[in-house]
C-alpha cells in the first residue's frame, strides 16, 4: 500500500505523464483547493452513513442470529430464510428498491440518508447474523449450564454471560464488516447521497478530469480504510493478548 501511494505521488509530482493534469486538485491554486474541499466534504457523510448502517446491521444481525441458535426447527428456518434471501439480493438493487420501491409500498417518505442506511444495514445484517451465530456457538456449553445453575433466565444468560464473551471474540470480524460497509457506502451515491463518490462524480461532470478526480477518490477510500483496518488489527492483537493473559 505504501508503495502504491509513493508511485501515485511520484506520478503526480513529476508530471511525467502528459495525460495527468493535477491543477484540478492542486491545493496551491484556488480552484484546486476548492475542488479538494468539495471532494472531502463527502467524507463526513460516508463515515456517518457507514457507522449508522453498521450499528443498525449489528442490531438486526443479532436479532436474526438468535432464532438460528434455537433447537426448534421452525425458528432456525426463520433465520435461514432471512439470511438466504438477503444474501441473494445485490446491494445496489436493494438500495434502489428501498429508495424507489419501499416508499410506495409502505406509504412513507424516506430520505436518501435513511434509505442508504436501511439498504446497507439490511444487506449486511445477514453477514452479521452469521458472525454472531458463529461467535455465540463458539462459547462453551458449560457457560449455559452454569447460568442455568444460578437460575438465570434466557435473556439474562445471553446478556450477562454469553454475549459479552461472544462479542469479544467477534469484534475483529465486526471491524472487518465496517471496512466492507465503508466500501459499499459508495453505492449509495446512485440515489444522490452526497458522500465521497457522489462528490467525485459531480466534480467530474464539471471539470472533465475523471482520471485525476477518481485517483483522489481512490486515495480517500484507501486512507480511510487503512486507518480502520489498522484499528481492527490493533483490536485483534489486544483480544489475543487478553485471551493469552
Amino acid at each position, binding site marked *: 500500500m505504501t508503495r502504491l501511494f509513493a508511485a501515485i505521488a511520484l506520478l503526480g509530482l513529476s508530471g511525467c505523464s502528459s495525460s495527468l493534469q493535477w491543477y484540478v486538485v492542486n491545493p496551491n491554486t484556488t480552484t484546486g483547493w476548492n475542488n479538494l474541499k468539495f471532494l472531502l466534504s463527502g467524507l463526513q457523510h460516508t463515515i456517518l452513513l457507514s457507522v449508522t448502517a453498521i450499528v443498525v446491521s449489528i442490531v438486526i444481525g443479532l436479532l436474526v442470529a438468535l432464532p438460528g441458535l434455537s433447537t426448534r426447527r421452525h425458528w432456525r428456518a426463520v433465520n435461514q430464510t432471512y439470511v438466504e434471501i438477503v444474501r441473494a439480493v445485490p446491494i445496489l438493487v436493494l438500495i434502489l428498491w428501498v429508495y424507489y420501491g419501499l416508499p410506495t409500498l409502505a406509504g412513507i417518505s424516506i430520505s436518501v440518508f435513511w434509505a442508504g442506511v436501511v439498504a446497507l444495514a439490511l444487506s449486511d445484517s445477514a453477514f452479521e447474523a452469521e458472525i454472531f451465530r458463529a461467535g455465540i456457538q463458539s462459547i462453551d456449553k458449560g457457560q449455559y*449450564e452454569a447460568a442455568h*445453575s444460578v*437460575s*438465570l433466565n434466557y435473556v439474562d444468560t445471553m446478556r450477562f454471560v454469553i454475549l459479552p464473551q461472544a462479542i469479544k471474540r467477534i469484534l475483529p470480524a465486526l471491524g472487518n464488516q465496517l471496512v466492507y460497509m465503508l466500501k459499499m457506502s459508495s453505492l449509495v451515491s446512485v440515489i444522490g447521497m452526497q458522500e465521497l463518490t457522489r462528490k467525485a462524480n459531480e466534480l467530474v461532470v464539471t471539470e472533465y478530469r475523471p482520471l485525476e478526480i477518481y485517483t483522489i477518490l481512490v486515495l480517500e477510500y484507501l486512507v480511510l480504510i487503512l486507518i480502520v483496518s489498522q484499528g481492527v488489527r490493533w483490536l485483534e492483537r489486544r483480544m489475543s493478548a487478553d485471551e493469552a493473559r
Partner: protein
Amino acid sequence: MPSGANAPIIKMDGVEKRFGNFAALDNVSLDVAEGERVVVCGPSGSGKSTLIRCVNALENHDKGAITVDGVLLDRSSQSLDAVKAATGMVFQQFNLFPHISVLDNLTLGPIRARGFSKSDAQAHAMTYLERVKIPEQAEKFPRQLSGGQQQRVAIARALAMEPRIMLFDEPTSALDPEMISEVLDVMSELANSGMTMIVVTHEMGFARQVADQMVFMDQGKIVEMAKPEAFFTAPKSNRAADFLRKILHH
C-alpha cells in the same frame, strides 16, 4: 406442594434417559433424604453425570418421575424455576464466567434471579468466599486463580444461591493432584454442615469419610446401593467389586 417431614427431598422413580439408542439412565430409582450425603460412583459412561443432570433439569428425562424439594419436574417453566432454585451445581470444568471477576461470578445470580441489591449481594458473596477460604481473591478474574481456587469459587457461587441441595459432578477430576484436597476439604465442611449432597466422584477416600449412602452405577442402572462401610468392605455385585479393585489399586 411442600415436602412432608419424612418425604425424601429428591425422589427418582423409574427414570429413563436416552441419547438416541443409548440408554444413559435405565429405570433408575433413588430417594435422597434431607441432609443425606450420597456419593455416586461407577465406570465412565455409566450414567452418573446424567443422573445428577436430570435432578437439576440440565437434561430432560424421557420416562419416570423426578421430584425435587416437593416439585415434580414436568418441563413446565414453574417446575424448572423451582428446581433450579432448590439445587446448586458444581461442574468438573468449574464453568466460572471468565469475563467477570470472582465477586461478580458470585453476585450475578443473587442480583438477577433473587432480587438482591448490589451491595447486599456483595456482602452475601463475601461470606461465601470466606467460607471457601479465598476472600482475598474477590477482585481477581477466574483465569488468575489456580484450578483448586477456581473450583472453590464455583462452590461458593453455587452456595450463594442458597440451594437446599448441592450436586457435584466430578468436582476434582480436572484438578492437579496437589489441589484436590483443598476442594475436598471444603466439600467435607459442607457435608458436616448438614447440606443435602449428591456427589459424583472417584475420590473413594472422601466417599468413605462423608457418604451416608454409596450408589454404584453401570450401564445406566443403579447396580448397588449400600452404606460406605458395607460397600467398601463387601460389595455385593461383581461389577462393583471389580470397579473398586481397579480404582483402589491403580
